């Protein structure tokens, strides 16, 4: 396989894909491609390496995990090339870490792209709105590189109507668009997608801000013929839709499995849709109340039977403006539900009990704290299979009434032993309850506790919450994501550094005493990828202690901490491949003055590794302290040990354990230039070292 110059579509070796593709419009695989096995006769000038590469391509085709792929690509140039040819799903965790040009130059056969933009704290108004993360440069590059592109997934990106128009124009085989926490577009852009993407299977708008351009976008779907629509999610769209058009669309979409309506769809309209789509597996019920101006009548539709007819329903959400009288309609489906989202429904404990009583199979449960500890106790009693729980506050203020507390948390920990992920907002908490959860729920991977009062201690003992969070990191051996709150001293961070060896994402707010806190974490957590900190007393010295690790991270966010511009510059000087953004409040910059008593004050430090250096679309309020460097890419030391006796190859970037009892650890070292691989054979092992 020589380097691929032509723009032929990716080769599909998996049987499923071949079967699937036969029924869809698709560029044909011509005779020069492989379908099964090797065929050296196809090549003009076969050479031994080509055979190896054929084998490699056939094997690597099956590698799906992108981490494994990343490691495979570092073995040698040949592997790098073949891996690049066989990668069909491109994931960009930070849109500024690599340029569209570089990404598309390396990977020539991509069919699905996922790009993430803004950091998560931007969701909470902590970042000025024009900061960046524009999809525009990407859509242009993708358009020229991958005309066969089928799927786009964007999270926290700014997407314009123009971008959506280009998506529809550039990609005739476009099938799936998923926009999560995005903004910048409106119903006008959606209209173009609906109208032009004839192969659209998935249009999912999740927690995105959609401007109301007064466009009937639902009406733009083709009016006749069967559609291939499988998923239509628009519960975040805050504007009315053309219901009649939607109804007609649903009728013509026999493959529709997921439908999540927005709050402008009344319960009466919901009924009409449900009876036409009993095959739904995921349903977002819209407002779940009567339309405005409609009163309870004698002839109300039989909502219960409509729900009962949906035998495949496993995921229920919506209830945006719930009229609780109708809640009983869903009882029939509760027994099958694996996911229930009541987080917009202001219901009390009694009302919840009537529902949750039936939900034995529930694995995901999102709810408002209006159900109180009592409601959580009921959930704990029934939902023995619960994996994910999110409890949102109805009144998100520091001093509001706290309907849920440690009592609810304790109950959940005792009833739901398989819990893997929890997000819990409350006013008061105790160490005891958190410790109990750490003991009762050993499978926890995500623990996010938000005690809404800043610096609030254990409300029974008056102690800091150090011990509770310490127990979580110590006992929950699978923990990868942690968000802390309440009164926390450096001790809590000491625990995290000592025990949180798998933690990848850490959120800190109003916590810690001194630089030591942050140091513990940066020195102790080798897997740390995403660190977001606000309003905590960590300064330059703490920042310095992470120098050995920043290239391994996706980003570091620190706002309202004790950093100085010099401290940030120092980091930038030491790590040329790091983009160090210092963001000031726009109003101050506009005035062009400095505070007399707070020099060079800035709000946010946001830094991330990048191959491109400082971005060219940074707004004026972003200062970049970065050194640009020539040469190619950052690299870490990778050690790959291939044991013939092992059943599987283990790829890894940081640490590797050798299976025959020898324990070898290699930590990542400062980046050096890439060199050719040194392949050495020894008696017992094939050792491949990459620099």
């Amino acid at each position, binding site marked *: 396989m020589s380097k691929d110059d032509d723009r032929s579509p990716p080769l599909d070796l998996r049987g499923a894909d071949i079967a699937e593709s036969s029924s869809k419009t698709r560029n044909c695989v011509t005779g020069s491609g492989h379908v099964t096995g090797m065929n050296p006769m196809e090549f003009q000038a076969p050479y031994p390496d080509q055979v190896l590469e054929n084998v490699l391509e056939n094997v690597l085709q099956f590698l799906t995990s992108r981490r494994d792929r990343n490691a495979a690509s570092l073995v040698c140039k040949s592997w790098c090339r073949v891996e690049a040819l066989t990668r069909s799903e491109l994931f960009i965790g930070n849109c500024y870490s690599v340029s569209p040009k570089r990404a598309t130059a390396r990977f020539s056969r991509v069919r699905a792209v996922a790009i993430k933009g803004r950091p998560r*704290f931007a*969701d*909470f*108004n*902590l970042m000025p709105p024009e900061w960046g993360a524009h999809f525009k440069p990407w859509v242009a590059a993708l358009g020229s590189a991958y005309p066969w592109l089928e799927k786009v997934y964007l999270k926290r990106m700014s997407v314009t109507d123009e971008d959506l128009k280009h998506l529809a124009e550039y990609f005739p085989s476009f099938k799936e668009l998923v926009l999560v926490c995005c903004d910048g577009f409106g119903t006008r852009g959606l209209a173009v997608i609906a109208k032009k993407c004839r192969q659209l299977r998935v249009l999912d708008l999740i*927690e995105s*801000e959609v401007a109301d351009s007064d466009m009937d976008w639902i009406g733009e779907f083709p009016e006749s013929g069967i559609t291939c629509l499988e998923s239509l999610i628009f519960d*975040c769209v805050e504007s009315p839709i053309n219901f009649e058009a939607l109804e007609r669309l649903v009728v013509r979409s026999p493959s529709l499995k997921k439908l999540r309506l927005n*709050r402008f769809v009344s319960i009466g309209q919901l009924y009409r849709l449900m009876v036409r789509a009993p095959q739904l597996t995921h349903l977002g019920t819209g407002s779940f109340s009567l339309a405005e101006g409609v009163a309870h009548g004698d002839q109300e539709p039989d909502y219960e039977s409509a729900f009962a007819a949906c035998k495949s329903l496993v995921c229920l959400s919506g209830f*945006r403006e719930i009229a609780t009288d109708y809640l009983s309609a869903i009882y029939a489906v509760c027994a099958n539900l694996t996911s229930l989202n009541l*987080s*917009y429904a*202001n219901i009390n404990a009694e009302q919840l009990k009537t529902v949750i009583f039936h939900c034995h199979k529930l694995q995901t449960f999102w709810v*408002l704290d209006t159900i109180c500890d009592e409601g959580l106790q009921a959930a704990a009693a029934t939902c023995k299979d619960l994996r994910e729980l999110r409890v*949102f*506050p*109805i*009144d*998100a*203020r*520091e*001093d*509001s*009434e*706290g309907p849920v507390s440690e009592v609810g948390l304790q109950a959940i920990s005792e009833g739901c032993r398989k819990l893997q992920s929890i997000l819990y*907002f409350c006013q008061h908490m105790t160490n005891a309850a958190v410790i109990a959860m750490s003991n009762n729920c050993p499978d926890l991977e995500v623990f996010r506790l*938000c005690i*809404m*009062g*800043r610096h609030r201690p254990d409300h029974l003992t008056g102690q800091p919450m150090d011990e509770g969070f310490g127990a979580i990191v110590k006992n929950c051996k699978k923990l990868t994501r942690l968000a802390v709150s309440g009164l926390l001293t450096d001790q809590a961070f000491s625990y995290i550094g000592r025990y949180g060896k798998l933690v990848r994402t850490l*959120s800190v*707010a*109003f916590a810690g005493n001194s630089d030591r806190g942050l140091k513990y974490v940066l020195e102790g957590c080798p897997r740390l990828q995403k660190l977001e900190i*606000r*309003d905590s007393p960590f300064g330059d010295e703490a920042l310095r202690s992470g120098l050995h690790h920043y290239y391994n991270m996706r980003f570091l966010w620190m706002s*309202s*901490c*004790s950093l100085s511009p010099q401290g940030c510059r120092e980091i930038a000087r030491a790590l040329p491949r790091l983009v160090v953004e210092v963001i000031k*409040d726009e*109003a*101050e910059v506009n005035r062009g003055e400095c*505070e007399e*008593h*707070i020099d060079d*004050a800035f*709000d946010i430090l946001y830094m991330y590794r990048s191959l491109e250096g400082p971005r060219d679309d940074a707004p004026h309020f972003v200062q970049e302290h970065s050194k640009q460097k020539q040469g190619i890419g950052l690299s870490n030391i990778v050690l790959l040990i291939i044991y013939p006796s092992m059943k599987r190859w283990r790829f890894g970037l940081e640490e590797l354990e050798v299976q025959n009892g020898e324990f070898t650890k290699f930590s990542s070292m400062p980046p050096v230039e890439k060199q050719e691989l040194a392949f050495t054979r020894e008696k017992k092992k094939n050792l491949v070292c990459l620099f």
Partner: protein
Amino acid sequence: MESKVAYENGLNLKATELRLGLPGTDIESEEQALSSARNNKRPLPDNSKECGLKGSSDDAQHSDHETAPPAKAQIVGWPPIRSYRKNNLQPKKGEAEASGIYVKVSMDGAPYLRKIDLRVYKGYPELLKALENMFKFTIGEYSEREGYKGSEFAPTYEDKDGDWMLVGDVPWDMFMSSCKRLRIMKGLEARGLGCGV
């Protein structure tokens, strides 16, 4: 307060009272705010009980004599809930729920700035209590003539024209629309602003 009693008796002496103040401003709320500052009485929200304010008075009649607990300043981005969740669940109000007025607050000697949303507060007393809580200090008593007495701190703000004013000098609505940022001054400077206004 005599004038307040007079008002309640229907004499409406307020309309004829000579005082410093700009025409067309909401005199009643200013009066209420200032008198509350003096009496340490705060205009309590209706649902104070549901809000769970600590130590909230049971008997509204006695609210004159008791201090209502301070509402904590609403820090930007805290708690970490996305705004669409907050908006969707609040009861729909008559007036449009406009976006917040965010201003920076700095205090002499404090290492970093805070940002607050002025729309959250109903008047000066709430704002001042919130600032006291935020920065852990006490503001003195306000008087028109002498500014804030009884503490070395004075809350000031920069208005649209770039002038530094003492917080409380203008009616609340005017303050909200003209305040660009807040600064809690310390020491001599603070006293300087208080006199000779």
